[in-house]
């Protein structure tokens, strides 16, 4: 099976085209051509995938081919939304596009049979963290542009060093792509992980195949088996993804769980301390030159609540 790229130059050209497209897309006063940039970025992604396509061997993919089609769908959504996050001129739009990134990467996790992480990602990121971002965007709502309150802020429409940043980022991307296709040219050291059947027999006595099979049969006897194909298809010898993650988490990383709890506690205390800090308001003029209406050192700017 061929895993190295026959023509790595093509993928570097694709990265270069993507860099140019991203540079065109960046919000800036001059040379802001969104249409051209979008075309270049999409073309770069297409070329990169065409070049990478030749490494695929559909007989030995490790995934079903149908699932791999979804890889392309979700990756395209994720990358497109990620570009929108960094070029949107309003923070709210950035946050909403980031929700799309999270949903698309949850789809990628599903393709990889990591169901638990997919749903945890949607609940924690799209549910909790993004809501926090939305609150902060509302709390820190600035007065808008210098003249019109609905106008974008000056610092939102002027990217900082777009050329150098795009060059550095995409240079790193080229290196990463080279590494991921070169380093994969090694035999898969496939995992000394024991078969599910042994794990079940050793530590989950209530979950052995016979017990589960008995439970399933009882369930089938209770229900009409033809009406419930899901129950009939359950595999008693195979651990589900949630069971696997839970076992690994609590067997191999018990200390990590405690430390994660401590980190969360410290973050909680820190957030409370930050929120209770009384901030003196410095009525300095805004450095970006956009004049803010005077008299904003009103007493309501003290304290968070």
């Amino acid at each position, binding site marked *: 099976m061929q895993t190295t790229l026959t023509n790595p130059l093509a993928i570097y050209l694709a990265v270069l085209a993507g860099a140019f497209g991203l540079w065109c897309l960046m919000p800036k006063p001059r040379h802001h051509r969104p249409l051209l940039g979008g075309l270049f970025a999409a073309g770069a992604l297409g070329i990169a995938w065409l070049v990478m396509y030749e490494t695929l061997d559909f007989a030995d993919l490790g995934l079903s081919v149908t699932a791999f089609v979804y890889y392309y769908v979700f990756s395209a959504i994720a990358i497109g939304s990620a570009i929108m996050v960094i070029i949107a001129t309003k923070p709210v739009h950035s946050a909403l596009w980031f929700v799309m990134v999270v949903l698309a990467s949850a789809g990628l*996790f599903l393709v990889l049979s990591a169901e638990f992480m997919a749903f945890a990602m949607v609940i924690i990121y799209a549910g909790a*963290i993004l809501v926090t971002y939305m609150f902060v965007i509302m709390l820190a709502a600035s007065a808008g542009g210098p003249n019109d309150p609905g106008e974008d802020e000056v610092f*939102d429409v002027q990217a900082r060093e777009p050329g150098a940043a795009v060059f550095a980022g995409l240079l790193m991307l080229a290196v990463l792509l080279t590494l991921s296709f070169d380093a994969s040219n090694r035999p898969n050291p496939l995992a000394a992980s024991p078969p599910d059947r042994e794990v079940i027999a050793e530590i989950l006595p209530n979950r052995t195949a016979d017990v589960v099979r008995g439970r399933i049969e009882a369930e089938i006897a209770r229900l009409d088996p033809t009406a419930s194909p899901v129950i009939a298809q359950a595999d008693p010898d195979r651990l589900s993804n949630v069971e696997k993650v839970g076992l690994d988490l609590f067997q191999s990383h018990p200390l990590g769980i405690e430390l994660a709890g401590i980190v969360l506690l410290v973050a909680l205390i820190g957030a409370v301390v*930050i929120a209770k800090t009384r901030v003196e308001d410095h009525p300095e003029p805004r450095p*970006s030159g956009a004049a803010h209406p005077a008299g904003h050192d009103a007493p309501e700017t003290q304290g968070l609540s």
Partner: protein
Amino acid sequence: MIDAAPTSLAPLLAVSLSDAALGHFQATAAVLFCLGLVGFVTRRNLIVMFLCTEMMFQGVAISLIAFSAYHGNVTGQTFVIFVLTIAAAEAALALGLVVMLFRRRRTLDAEAWAQLHD
């Protein structure tokens, strides 16, 4: 009937990625990471800068889970749980700081804090 059914499902459930498929997932992860990096450097809005760091976390999570599928164990997925924990703690603290900074200068512009001596 119960014995017959799993054999048809087995190829769908058993994920052990091939090298080339792993490379594809790594490529997507690398693109997400680098876009987050570019966004962090170019954007001047504090909130969007932190959103971009979250996007880099997304890229790392995809990479870890693809490796977990490649090696056929779940350590990568377990590690993503810890990444999520740290990301949640970081988001809470960073956003609290952003609100505090906004109260000091009445702007979200990162350039307003270019001089650290005050």
